[in-house]
């Protein structure tokens, strides 16, 4: 059957990619690779600074975009009366959800790196990635909030609960699993982005691990890119190694989200 063949081909393409990546990364794999600083010599190159940079960026992005995004979703769904303003805001959010990440990089360069004078730092990277994740976090959180049955709210209101009590006690607990799942998907996609960081001016050879958000911008995705563009054979292995490390970071983020989600479901059930 043709459709079955197509499905098998899709699965095969994915497997090929995974196998090629791991096979190429194999020779780079040792413990030093994880902690060593980046280097111009492939043998001595490690992903220590890039890994630390990506962890910083992930933390900053979640810290900025999650509260603001969920807060906005709650306001739009529970507080703002439906009508003109609501339509304008949700239209704008929906439109910006489809804008390519590299465009956010250009805007971030003008706004954060130059406009606010942050320079090409992890902080500027975190702000840009947060802006990139924001529309998706808002859209998925709104969908999760809207899926909470009306009756739950009405029952609480009829018992004399105030709006905040309804939001805090009923809506958020019921919507939390959906909010976490949707936001986490957005954050995983954002943390894997290289394009906006490249535009902001990420460094490709960094000799020390960043200790604060004011340190220079470095990350695993941009490190994979920088090493991929080098023609020497041995850099292909470290690029693949950095790619595998990036995939592992994203996998851990996904596992954390799953655990959090299971906890939340346990509480609200």
């Amino acid at each position, binding site marked *: *059957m*043709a*459709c079955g063949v*197509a*499905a098998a081909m*899709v*699965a095969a393409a*994915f497997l090929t*990619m995974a196998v*090629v*990546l791991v096979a190429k990364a194999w020779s780079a794999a040792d413990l030093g690779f994880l902690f060593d600083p980046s280097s111009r010599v492939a043998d001595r190159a490690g992903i220590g600074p890039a890994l630390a940079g990506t962890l910083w960026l992930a933390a900053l992005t979640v810290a900025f975009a999650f*509260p*603001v*995004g*969920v*807060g*906005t979703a*709650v*306001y739009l769904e529970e*507080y703002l009366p439906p009508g003109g303003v609501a339509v304008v805001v949700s239209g*704008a*959010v*929906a439109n*910006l959800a*489809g*804008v*390519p990440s*590299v*465009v*956010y990089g*250009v*805007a971030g*360069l*003008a706004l954060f*790196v*130059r406009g606010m004078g942050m320079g090409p730092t992890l902080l500027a990277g975190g702000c840009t990635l*947060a*802006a990139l994740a*924001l529309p998706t976090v808002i859209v998925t959180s709104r969908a999760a909030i809207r899926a909470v049955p009306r009756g*739950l709210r009405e029952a609480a209101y009829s018992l*004399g609960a*105030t*709006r*905040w*009590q309804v939001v*805090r006690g*009923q809506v958020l607990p019921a919507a939390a699993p959906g909010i976490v799942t949707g936001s986490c998907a957005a954050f995983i*996609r954002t943390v*894997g982005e*290289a*394009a906006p960081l*490249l535009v902001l*001016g990420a460094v490709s050879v960094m000799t020390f691990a960043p200790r604060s958000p004011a340190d220079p911008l470095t990350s695993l995705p941009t490190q*994979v*890119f920088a090493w*991929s563009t080098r023609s020497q054979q041995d850099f292909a292995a470290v690029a693949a190694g950095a790619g595998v490390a*990036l*995939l592992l970071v*994203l996998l851990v983020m996904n596992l954390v989200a799953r655990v959090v989600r299971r906890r939340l479901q346990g*509480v609200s059930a």
Partner: protein
Amino acid sequence: MTAAGISVTRRAPRRLADRLARPAFLACTVLAAATLVAVAGVLGVETVRFFGTVSPVRFFTEVDWTPFAEEPRFGVLPLLAATAQITAGAAFFAVPAGLMTAVYMEHYAGVRTERVLAGVTGLLAAVPTVVLGYFALTFVTPLLRALWPGTEAFNALSACLAVGLMILPTVIVFTRNALRSVPAALMETGLALGAGRGRVVARVMVPAAAPGIGAAVFLAMARAAGETMIVTLAAGNQAQLTWSPLEGLRTLTAYIAQSSLGDAPSGTVQYGAFFAVSAVLFAVTWGLHATGRFLMSRRSRGGLG
């Protein structure tokens, strides 16, 4: 513990929280709106400033893109054509494969196979595009060069294949949603009338889901047009008009990513060019994305006509 969570005894702190809640949520909304307005605004302002020095007519009609030459030329057509070629090429590979995979998952596969395929789709969606670009450059391109020795080291075909792989999950997920929203009764009626499963799927189920499938295609193409890292790594940096898929080309996104913008001084015409290119890219992806969302809204209104 739903209704039990409401305590009627703790009165005082509740009032304070109540009074703070609305302004706090409003502040979040204002901050989010301000960020997104600033993103759109800075693009608009710099683009308008750029068109103050470079005529928009020349920008959209000339065929030379040499912003850093002695006599800079800003003809965006080669970049725009390259983006169109990559988008169309990626869709050429991903749409049939994704559509058929979605049909297989919805109408043929057993529970276990479906779960495996859904898992693969989810994993593929989480793979960063820079990793796919690496795959294209170090695996697909050498393969193509072995097949067709004339292939350039940077070529459009390799990028199209990898971008196609990247947009597959989008095509599959949205097509599945569209197929799932078609009433199962249609399938049962068709089968009861004696038509084979393949016939009912091809003649009834897929046509009934057409608007949703169209939405899947446009949303996937919007992602393909905005994809940066794969084309930057695999398609090269020659801003040229060419029809050959085995030659290199340079898309709107690749130009932005490759030109190490961080070094261009603010206020120069070259700096402005990044914003103009970004605005064009914005317009292209917005058009595709809006069309996709329009088709999606038609789907949710139902109607099989």
